[in-house]
């Protein structure tokens, strides 16, 4: 990147930041929202989520290429949910999560104000879920080239090679459940892995226990994962767990023609039967 284009990007980012901060201030001042979930400067040149209730503090808000965390995970957090009206800084991943949560009856349209950020970093407001849906249908969330390459490589492997690949990856898993906690769609009050009477999933972190956990997580997100990749980013031992749910999303799309997080009334692929569903998986 040349020096000039770096400066241009910086100027555009600064301009977008001011627009974003002013919008947030206005929403809080007008009581259009009670809290805003956004990104702020973190420690050691990282960013982290910030929660703003006072219009005088909106200068904390930033948005740049470091802002990757899927903030929608906080929408269902008890301490956030108690606010009547929630504003959220939403990139495409957050927007899609909002639609998916709505389709699963977890989020009411009147509860949130979407402060959208477009791919070029500028602000976009939405009147409601309908407009959000239209926008999402035109703006895809593409998975990265690197991830697609690994997925292709996994596809070309034999079953045994694939098994060995995941055995090696899961051997590092400690079951800290950061993948679950980081995912906005893992919102069950009691995860299946927490049941002990009967014990559904082997609770300990062993080869078998880790496999059971990751398989279950992937299956429970089939047709629901919006492909933000947050689970993989959250993993402190770099297991690419997001590839499991990405693969599920691709399979659901190819089989049923459905993409999660594109329609507020999508319904659930895994619990809906349609007479014209393809049944070619039965062999």
């Amino acid at each position, binding site marked *: 990147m040349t020096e000039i284009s770096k400066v241009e990007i910086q100027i555009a980012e600064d301009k977008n930041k001011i627009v974003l901060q002013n919008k947030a201030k206005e929403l809080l001042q007008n009581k259009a929202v009670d809290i805003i979930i956004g990104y702020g400067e973190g*420690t050691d040149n990282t960013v*982290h989520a910030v929660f703003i209730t006072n219009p005088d503090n909106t200068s904390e808000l930033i948005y740049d290429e470091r802002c990757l965390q899927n903030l929608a995970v906080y929408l269902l957090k008890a301490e956030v949910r108690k606010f009547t009206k929630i504003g959220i800084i939403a990139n495409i991943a957050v927007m899609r999560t909002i639609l998916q949560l709505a389709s699963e009856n977890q989020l009411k349209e009147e509860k949130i104000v979407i402060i959208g950020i477009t791919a070029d970093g500028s602000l976009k407001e939405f009147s409601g879920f309908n407009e959000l849906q239209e926008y999402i249908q035109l703006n895809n969330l593409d998975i990265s080239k690197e991830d697609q390459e690994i997925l292709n490589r996994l596809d070309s492997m034999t079953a045994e090679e694939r098994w060995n690949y995941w055995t090696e990856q899961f051997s590092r898993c400690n079951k800290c459940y950061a993948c679950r906690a980081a995912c906005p769609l893992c919102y069950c009050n009691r995860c299946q892995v927490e049941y002990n009477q009967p014990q559904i999933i082997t609770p300990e972190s062993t080869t078998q226990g880790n496999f059971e956990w990751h398989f279950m997580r992937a299956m429970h997100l089939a047709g629901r994962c919006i492909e933000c990749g947050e689970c993989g980013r959250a993993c402190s*031992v770099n297991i690419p767990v997001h590839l499991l749910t990405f693969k599920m999303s691709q399979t659901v799309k190819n089989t049923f023609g459905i993409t999660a997080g594109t329609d507020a009334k999508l319904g659930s692929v895994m619990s809906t039967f349609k007479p014209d569903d393809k049944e070619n998986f039965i062999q």
Partner: protein
Amino acid sequence: MDITRHLISKEKLSSLIGKCMEDGKKVYAPVKKNNLVNFAFISSFQEITNDYINTVQSAKPVLFPKAEKLMEIKMSKDNIELKSRDKNLISETIVYGSRPCDATGINILNKMFTAGITDQLFAERFAKTTLISVSCKKCDSKCFCTSMGINPGNTDGSDILLTEVENGNYLVEIMTDKGQKIISSYQSYFDKAPDINKDKYLVDVPVAFELKGFDEKIKDAFDSPIWLEQSMRCIGCGSCAYACPTCACFDIQDSFNGQEGQRKRNWDSCGFSMFTLHSSGHNPREVQSKRWRQRILHKFQYMPEQFQLFGCTGCGRCSRSCPTDMNIKEHLINLIKNI
């Protein structure tokens, strides 16, 4: 015992570790794999990496495994047979390459597992583990051992501490009988220590905060709004607890296959929403802010009360592992300033 000093060359250190393995000891050391440096059981010295500030996970699993079988259970019509874990199956182990903060962490773990009723499995592992730590030449912004009263050349908790000095040689400091046993068994590997000042070979970790009086001050902070402010972005995973060298909570689970089963203990974390869920359905820590408060109070109030030491060594692992930047050093600075 008094600290005794020796010198060992890198080559001799490598053959010493090899010899220990030949003699049937298991060696647990930092290994680089998938761009991460973590402890693993090794089969040759060459697997060990030197290229790390601190491992992602601490050396804790060698004494307190993430999943451990406690006993076997066999049920018949009129009898239940319980068979404890055979302690003799636990092998003599050398932990190589732990940092001084880790060694302090193991000391803290030992206090917790032996206060009151001694945890038999932990005590057996502890007795059979020799800690050969390596002092720090590098640190990062997450390190704050010097704020916790530890330093990069701290000998506390290690059986042997190595400090890399000149010409690829290591200064060897022997702190315990377990350490002395290694020296006595393998005398030919060691040379006489020169008269050197160890400190000049250590990294300077800046002091980030002054902890004096904090354990007293924190006693009045239970109802402070600061816990909620700090923990709003916490998502409630167990990443911090599982990376921590002193977190020792576990969950006990039985699993059965017909009439035969096992009782196991697995790591658990006070950050999980169900950690304190009662069978009645009541949860005294029903929100994340109360769980975060527990994490901090346990390490900075309850442990000083119980053991006269802090439950934190300043290793910075929780901050490095956290997906939401819950940087403990920054949170402590903020707490000291604002409560």
